[in-house]
């Protein structure tokens, strides 16, 4: 029986984080799916980075920078909505506005997050090409790791706040599927069916986290070759 511990790397945007507001949507840290996964495999070694509003390349580059020699057995990624959802202005323009008119940003914010303005401008924060490059690069650097990529997802009602987002999600999910054909996990159907989204139609409530954790654990983690050989102390 092997004594090597399973090494699991978890990389997510804000969806993997706990939430404290609004109260009806609050999810504590130990109810988030990364922690539910940890509960299932308590003897594994984990490294988790969950960072809000981060682009996929920035998130993955953190792992490349610090962990390229760690050789995790499994990498679980949930990222992409920040890259693909339609924006009214570029990130650079947003920073300029914040810097030079921070007093009025709350007013300007109402304009730049107005669905009609978003629909008209329809900008990418990250182009599909750049997104694809980031994924290909990551896959090659962590070539010996089994990569599980949770599909980019949101409730259909998210389209109200972000017109055209569902089309963008499909577009970017196709890229993920092409690069990780065995690794992509579909979660949206179950989340919609079991009402796992919170009131912003994007982040998960406690039930949603539980659903995602179960899907990851059931579909992939029990298929890891030789997992049954790892000692559980």
């Amino acid at each position, binding site marked *: 029986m092997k004594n090597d511990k399973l090494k699991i790397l978890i990389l997510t945007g804000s969806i993997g984080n706990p939430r404290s507001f609004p109260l009806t949507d609050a999810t504590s840290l130990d109810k988030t799916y990364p922690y539910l996964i940890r509960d299932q495999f308590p003897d594994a070694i984990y490294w988790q980075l969950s960072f809000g509003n981060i*682009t996929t390349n*920035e998130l993955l*580059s953190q792992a490349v*920078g610090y962990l390229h020699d760690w050789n995790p057995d499994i990498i679980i990624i949930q990222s992409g909505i920040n890259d693909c959802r339609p924006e009214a202005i570029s990130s650079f323009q947003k920073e300029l506005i914040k810097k030079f008119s921070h007093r009025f940003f709350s007013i300007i914010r109402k304009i730049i997050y107005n669905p009609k303005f978003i629909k008209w401008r329809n900008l990418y924060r990250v182009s599909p090409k750049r997104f694809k*490059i980031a994924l*290909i690069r990551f896959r*090659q650097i962590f070539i010996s790791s089994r990569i599980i990529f949770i599909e980019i997802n949101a409730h259909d009602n998210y389209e109200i706040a972000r017109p055209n987002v569902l089309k963008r999600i499909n577009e970017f999910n196709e890229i993920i599927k092409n690069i990780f054909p065995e690794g992509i996990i579909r979660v949206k159907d179950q989340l919609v069916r079991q009402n796992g989204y919170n009131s912003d139609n994007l982040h998960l409530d406690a039930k949603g986290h539980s659903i995602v954790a179960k899907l990851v654990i059931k579909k992939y983690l029990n298929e890891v070759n030789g997992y049954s050989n790892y000692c559980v102390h």
Partner: protein
Amino acid sequence: MNIDIENRIKKIIAKILVIDPSEINDGTSFGTVDSWNSINHKKIINALEREFDISFDKYEKETFFNYKIIKITIIAYIC
């Protein structure tokens, strides 16, 4: 095609670091070559961007501390 790309990358890195291209392998890094300092590091990135007509993402540039990662990144851009 990948061999051609690798040779071009090695040629550039070797020229800037004043080493023989044959000395460059996946283990060649910021920590293994004395002449790979922060100034030469920036020169390497700029030269590679010009050579391959690429504009690297700033987060990628921060990870370019070994030849292997540079090579994989450039191949991801081109292929």
